[in-house]
């Protein structure tokens, strides 16, 4: 602030200004009634939903304009084509069915992945060898593409859902475990000592102290894991095929790709985007609001 800088440096023998004392009788009135007024724009801007809708509309516009300019529906359909195909797919019930199948598989894989991540990180936080084990496994397996798991998946689970779930777990597990473990390690020594003081140990300490204390990191891990589960699912459904008409969104995309129904391909992807937006804004955002934001562990 320039104002402060304008203050002349106080003369070395400047004396504080001598003035009379003041004694007041504090009035009691309702301070809670005082509120800073906001303009309409401010009010709209303050509303997260409004801001996000504006961003989404802009993105849709960019897509539409670029799609039209490109004029190559076989490779990249415009937004309106995609939306049309999307509603057609929804109307015929196909998309809903396919998304339902995918979602079910996804949730199973995601759930198992999180369960295993919990187990591994609990082990990791309880002993040094556990930490090394987790670190080694993660650095070895996390970079491996699904192709590396394919033979084992086929041997263990055969064609179909079992293998897809196996691959899903692979894509969720390491990211969640890495984030969770890093979160656990970042929990302050004091917090840990408080938990130990209550006599908590092992899994109880993890559940009652470390998990809530590291919840921010865990949530990030869950978000990353969720996204990669989708990516993997779509790719895996192509590889593992389907035994009957029961394929999911990945299969839908693959089928339509082969049929050169590009608008449908994008309608499928559009559905993935929509699901992503919903999960982020309704599920993850709610969790965030009810936990870390409320607990003062997330700022802004």
């Amino acid at each position, binding site marked *: 602030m320039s104002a402060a800088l304008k203050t002349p440096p106080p003369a070395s023998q400047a004396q504080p200004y001598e003035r009379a004392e003041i004694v007041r009788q504090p009035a009691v009135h309702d301070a809670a009634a005082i509120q800073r007024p906001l303009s309409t724009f401010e009010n709209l801007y303050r509303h997260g939903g409004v801001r996000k809708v504006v961003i989404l509309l802009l993105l849709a516009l960019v897509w539409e304009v670029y799609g039209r300019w490109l004029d190559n529906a076989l490779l990249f359909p415009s937004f309106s084509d995609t939306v049309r195909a999307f509603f057609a797919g929804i109307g015929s019930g196909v998309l809903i069915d396919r998304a339902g199948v995918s979602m079910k598989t996804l949730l199973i894989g995601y759930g198992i992945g999180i369960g295993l991540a919990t187990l591994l990180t609990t082990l990791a936080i309880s002993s040094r060898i556990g930490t090394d084990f987790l670190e080694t496994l993660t650095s070895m397996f996390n970079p491996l593409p699904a192709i590396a798991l394919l033979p084992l998946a086929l041997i263990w689970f055969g064609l179909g859902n079992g293998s897809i779930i196996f691959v899903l777990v692979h894509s969720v597990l390491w990211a969640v475990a890495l984030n969770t473990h890093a979160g656990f390690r970042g929990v302050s020594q004091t917090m840990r000592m408080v938990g130990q003081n209550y006599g908590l140990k092992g899994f109880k300490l993890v559940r009652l102290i470390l998990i809530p204390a590291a919840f921010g990191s865990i949530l990030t891990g869950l978000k990353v894991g969720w996204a990669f589960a989708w990516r993997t699912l779509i790719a895996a459904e*192509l590889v593992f095929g389907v*035994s009957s008409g029961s394929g999911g969104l990945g299969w839908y995309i693959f089928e339509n790709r082969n049929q050169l129904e590009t608008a449908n391909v994008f309608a499928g992807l559009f559905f993935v985007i929509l699901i992503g937006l919903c999960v982020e804004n309704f599920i993850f955002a709610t969790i965030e609001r009810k936990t870390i934001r409320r607990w003062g562990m997330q700022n802004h």
Partner: protein
Amino acid sequence: EANAVRLSHGYGMLYLPLMVIRDQKLIEKHAKAAGLGDVTTNWATLDGGNVINDAMLSGNLDIAGTGAPGFITLWSKANGIPRSEVIGLGALSTASLWLNTNNPNIKSLKDFTPKDKIAIPGIKTSLSAVVLQMAAAKEFGHANYAKLDPLTVSLGHPEAVGALLSGKTEITAHFTSPPFSYQEAKDPRITRVLSSTAVLGNITLDVVFAMKQFTVQNPKLTQAFVAAQEEANAYIARDRKGAAETFLRVSKIKLTQAEVEAMLADPDNQFSTTPVGIMQYVDFMGLAGTIKTRPKAWSELFIDSVKSRKGS
């Protein structure tokens, strides 16, 4: 013998007999006739030779259709490893692969310049890759079979169609099978450089195969499958309209009935269980070094009941 059989077919026209078998439940019918009782079938739709190989080797698949070069590679690799040995049940289909281009300057293989890119769906052992090399060998001499390799890029058929038709990418040619080849040909800007049948004749492109163990343990079931395939082939030859309907129903592909019938009418598209030109692949792949173990005759690759055919 097993009372369930797991099969897979791929996506395009080349798999039509398997689709008919699936649609008309021909295996169930012939198995019953052979006294095997009620046999159930499980069909998977698998894309890509690798996955079929893996599924087969891991014991998740009994019978599958795949490209001839891929099958030959697997046979060669697995030869001498009892638990992994595979055997052909017969040919599946013959069709023509077309090399389409959007570059008007290209009239023959000789006209490709380093700036051109040819899209093929796989490399080395994929059907298109091998057939293209064989065509190059014919054109430029055997030593130069790999001459076009630097120009080839691996890209899935659908993307390649989009890329070729858009003309906005560096893809200037696409070596592909029906229905993609037909789809491209509809566009006036696309010209055909080469048809595989014109160069190599009507050789078998896809075959049906199984693990050797399976055929040994289930001789009647194997025969039931062969019989089913014969019936399917006969049906396709007899009832083009019905076959086209089956294709549309099973593959769910969005073509008109007329378009499919036109494809079926093309004399290049043939469905027979007799393997033709297998040794052409074997000789070529042996020379190219893709396979190390080479069969002496085509019949080594197939089950006894096919051996008596007039194959090559």
